[in-house]
C-alpha cells in the first residue's frame, strides 16, 4: 500500500529526514516511536503534502502511484488521512460546513453525487456516536475553543467520516483522558479492516495496549533505527531511548 524508499526531506534548509525506508501493507498497523524532534511529524507532513517540507531525495508510492506528485486534497481523496498532532482552529467555519465540503469532495472524486442534507446529517449523527463526540462540539466552528482532548476526538470523528485507506495518527493519545483514550482506540479498531492500514505515532505504550501494532519502528534523528514487533514498545517503556541514542541499534 505505502512504500517509502530512502526518503530525505528538509525544512528551511535543515535536513530532518535522512533516509527513511518503510513499507506498510493493507491490514497492518505500524507504530512509530522516537524522541521529541526526531522527525515523526515531519514524516507525516511529507505523506500529506505540507509545502513547508521539501523532499530532496527518495520516493513514496501509495498503491503504486507516486504520492509526492499529488496535491494534498488528492492524497486525501486517494485515502490518506492524518490525525494532526496539533489540530488547527478555523474560526467562522462550522464543523457542519467543513465536513460537508470534505465528504462531498471525496464523493465527487469517486464520481458520486453530493449527499442530500438529511443523509449528510444522518451520517454525522452515526459517526459522532462512534467517538462519543458531543453535538455541542459539531455545532461550533472547526476546533475553535475545543479542549486538547476534544480536538483529538474530533480528528477521529473526521477519520470515521472520511473512511481512509491509510490513517496516520500523530500523537492522537496525547491530551486524552483514560476513558477518552479507550473510546478513541475502540473507534480506530472498529474502523480497522483488512483493506486499510494505520500508522500510529505515539510516545506511550498505553495506546498500543488498545491498538495493537504489528510492527514498531523507532525513528531517531531522521532515520528508522530499529524495527520489531509489538514487544519493542514495551522494551522502550522500560529502558527509554538512551540505548538507542548510544548507538546500540543492533
Amino acid at each position, binding site marked *: 500500500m505505502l512504500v517509502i524508499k530512502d526518503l530525505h526531506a528538509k525544512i528551511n534548509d535543515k535536513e530532518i529526514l535522512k533516509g527513511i525506508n518503510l513499507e506498510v501493507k493493507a491490514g497492518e498497523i505500524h507504530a512509530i516511536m522516537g524522541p521529541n524532534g526526531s522527525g515523526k511529524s515531519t514524516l507525516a507532513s511529507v505523506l500529506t*503534502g505540507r509545502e513547508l517540507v521539501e523532499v530532496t531525495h527518495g520516493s513514496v508510492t501509495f498503491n503504486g502511484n507516486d504520492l509526492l506528485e499529488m496535491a494534498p486534497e488528492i492524497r486525501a*481523496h486517494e485515502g490518506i488521512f492524518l490525525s*494532526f498532532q496539533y489540530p*488547527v482552529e*478555523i474560526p467562522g467555519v462550522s464543523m457542519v460546513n467543513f465536513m460537508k465540503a470534505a465528504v462531498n469532495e471525496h464523493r465527487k472524486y469517486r464520481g458520486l453525487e453530493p449527499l442530500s442534507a438529511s443523509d449528510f446529517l444522518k451520517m454525522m449523527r452515526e459517526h459522532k456516536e462512534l467517538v462519543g463526540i458531543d453535538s455541542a462540539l459539531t455545532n461550533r466552528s472547526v476546533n475553535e475553543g475545543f479542549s486538547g482532548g476534544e480536538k483529538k476526538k474530533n480528528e477521529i470523528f473526521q477519520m470515521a467520516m*472520511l473512511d481512509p485507506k491509510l490513517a496516520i495518527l500523530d500523537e492522537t493519545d496525547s491530551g486524552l483522558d483514560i476513558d477518552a483514550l479507550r473510546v478513541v482506540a475502540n473507534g480506530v479498531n472498529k474502523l480497522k479492516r483488512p483493506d486499510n492500514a494505520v500508522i500510529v505515532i505515539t510516545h506511550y505504550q498505553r495506546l498500543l495496549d488498545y491498538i495493537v501494532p504489528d510492527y514498531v519502528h523507532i525513528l531517531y534523528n531522521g532515520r528508522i533505527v530499529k524495527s520489531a514487533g509489538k514487544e519493542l514498545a514495551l522494551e522502550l517503556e522500560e529502558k527509554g531511548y538512551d540505548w538507542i541514542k548510544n548507538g546500540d541499534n543492533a
Partner: protein
Amino acid sequence: MFSIGVNYLSMADKTSTLSVRDEFVNLYLNNLDLITEESSELMNHYREEAIQYFRLLGIPSVKNEKYKYSKIEPLFGYDYEKYFAPKKILFNIDDIFRCDIPELDTHLALVLNGFYLPNRANKITELPNGIIMGSLAEASRLYPNMFKGRYNTLAENTTDGLVAMNTAFAQDGVFIYVPRNVVEAKPIQIINLLMSDENQLVQYRNLIVVEDGAQAKVLVCDHTLSPKRFLSNVVTEIFVGRNASLEFVKMQNEHNDSAQITHTYVNQQRDSHLVTNTLTLHGGFIRNNLFVTLSGEGADAQLYGLYLTDRTQHTDNFTYIDHAVPNCTSNELYKGILDDQATGAFNGKILVRRDAQKTQAYQSNNSLLLTADARMNTKPQLEIYADDVKCSHGATVGQLNNEALFYMRARGIGEREAKLLLMFGFVHEVIKKISIDTLRERIDDMVNRRLHGELSRCHNCLMHC
C-alpha cells in the same frame, strides 16, 4: 406605470474651465426655482445657508485628513445629468425590479434616482399602528412638527462640503416615523434604484425617527439598474428615542462605475439601542460616513460592517462615535476582503468626553488581502478625556491562514473551495449580527456567490448590472 412630469436639465453646455465648486454654485443659482418647486418649504429653508457653506468648503480633497484615503474630486470630473424633478418612466417598475429575498416580508419604500416613488399615487403610507413612511418632501408638508427640530439638526453642513451640498440640492428622499412604544417586527425596507440613460448625480435625504420605547428595523438596499455612471451623495439623519431600538442594515450593491458617498448621523437618547450593519457587497467607489452620538445615559451602539471588494473597487468606512454622557457602550466590528487591486480604508474615531465616565467602547477592524496589490489602510483614533473608561481597539490586515488552508486540503477540500470557506468564515462574524433571519440567510447566500466570483445580484432582478 408611472408618468410624472419631466423637467430635465443638462449641464453639458457649461464652460468646463470652472472649478467643481463654482460649477455647482452656479448650477444651484441657475436652477433654484426648479429645486425649490419640487421640494418643500421646510427643506428649502436650509438651502441658502448650505450653499454658502458649500461655497466655503467645496469638495473635500485628500489633503482633508478625514478624506485622506478617498479621492472625491475625480468623481466630479465626469459629466452628469442633473435634474430637479422626478423623471418620467415609461414602464412598470415591478417589471424590471423585484426584490427577491424569499419570505422577506417588508414595508417597502422605493426611491428612484433620489425621488420617492409613490405607492399607487400615495406619497405617504400610514400603517395601522401609526408608523408613517413615504416621501420626505411630502412628509415635511403634512407633518411639520415631526420634521422641525430634527431635519438638518444632525447633519454637519459646517464641516463637510458634501453634506452642505446635499442640503442645498436634495429635494426628496424617505421619511420614516415610528411612534412612541410601537414595536414593529416587520422590517421597513428602502430600495434605492438608480436608473438612467445618462450619467447621473443623485443627491437625496432621509429622515428616520424612532420615538421613545419604539422598536424598528430598517433595511436599505441600493441597486444600479442601468450601466451608466452614477454618483450618489446621500445624507440620512436618524433619531432613536429613550429606550427605543433600531436595527439599521444597509446593503450596497452597485456596479463598478457607480460611486456612493453616504453620510449617516444618529442621535441616541437614554437607554436606546442601535445596531447598524453596513454591507458593501459590490460597488465601484464607496465612502460611508457614520456618526453616532450617544447623548443619553445607558445608550448602546453596535456598529458592524462588511466589505467585499475586487478589481479596482474602493471602499472607505469612516465612523465617529461620540460618547457624550456617562454609562454608554459602543462596539464596532468591521471586516472585509480585498482582492485584485482593490483598495480600502477604515477610520474609526471614538470620542469619550470628559463627563462620559464608565464608558465602554470597543472597536476592531480586520481585513484579508488576497493579493499583493490589494491595499487596506486602517486607522483607529481614540480620543479619551474621561478617566474611568474601558476602551480598546484592534486592527489586523492579513492573508488567509495557511495552516487552516492545509488542514482543509488534507481533508480533501480543494484549494479554491478551502479558500472560499475560509473567506466566508472570516466575514460570517459580521453577517451573523443581522437579526432578521431571512435577510441573514439571503446575505449569506449572496456573499457566498460574491466570493465565488458571481455578481451578487438578486435572482429575480432582471437587470444585469
